[in-house]
């Protein structure tokens, strides 16, 4: 005779408002021993933003810089951070419908890539040698 029923509720709960920052910080701290010292200042800034930051734009900016510099060698930690931040943004936004962090990150990456492509295309179409050209200055206006 069966003696036990199945209790799925014994599983660990998903990250909460209180825990996600600590989880994210732990991932960042684990990166220190495996990254080169020039990246440590960036990681310290990201750690600080994740712990104390109230301005999501600043947190995104420093996260994107870190991701750009380190993700190629540390894909898994940045995947974990991305997922954790995505879930947490929804948590902190409560039930208010909002654009997900995943979308914001994708848009930001896309917009930067688009700008870069557009600049190179303009230089090419106007016959400039963009290897030898002077640094191009442009202003990015986000609307």
């Amino acid at each position, binding site marked *: *005779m*069966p*003696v*036990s029923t*199945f*209790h*799925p*509720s*014994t*599983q*660990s709960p*998903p990250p909460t408002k209180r825990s996600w920052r600590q989880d994210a910080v732990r991932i960042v701290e684990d990166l220190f021993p495996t990254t080169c010292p020039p990246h440590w200042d960036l990681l310290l800034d990201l750690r600080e933003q994740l712990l104390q930051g109230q301005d999501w734009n600043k947190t995104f900016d420093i996260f994107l810089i870190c991701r750009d510099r380190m993700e*190629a*060698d540390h*894909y*898994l930690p940045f*995947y*974990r951070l991305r997922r954790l931040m995505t879930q947490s943004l929804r948590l902190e936004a409560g039930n208010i419908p909002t654009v997900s962090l995943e979308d914001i990150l994708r848009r930001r990456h896309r917009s930067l890539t688009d700008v870069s492509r557009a600049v190179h295309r303009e230089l090419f179409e106007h016959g400039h040698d963009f290897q030898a050209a002077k640094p191009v200055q442009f202003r990015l206006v986000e609307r």
Partner: protein
Amino acid sequence: MSTQTATIPKSNAVVEGLQTLLSDSYALMAQTHLAHWNVEGPNFFQLHTAFQSQYEDLFEAIDEIAERLRALDVLAPGGLQTLAKGSRIEELPTQTTLAKDFVAHLIESHEITVANAHTLRQSSGESDDLETQDLVIGRLQFHQKTLWMLRSFLKNL
């Protein structure tokens, strides 16, 4: 002289651990199958083939775990909804996903399975249920080997 009893002694920790291992393995098999179908990019052939080999192993393991529960005289949980509730493994949405993200997601899923299987290995040892422990050790070997392969894939991309 002692005789073999008709029923095998069991503990609740072992039964719950086997139920969780069953749910985790089922969820992981479904996610690996999803990755097998939808992976794209220059590594398509190697990942498509590797994922197939992994979900086939998981499919066989699920049967073995469920039959161990039956050997302990416990009904095996079944059905997609019931098994999904029994696992912390998250489902990827059906959308275009980078091959690297499929691999990273499967790494996380294997890690969850390994963590729960460690607990079951411990509890089955404490309960002197060496047959369950043997099964779990076999499963752990598979998950650890798969983790090594998946993690290796993400290096130097």
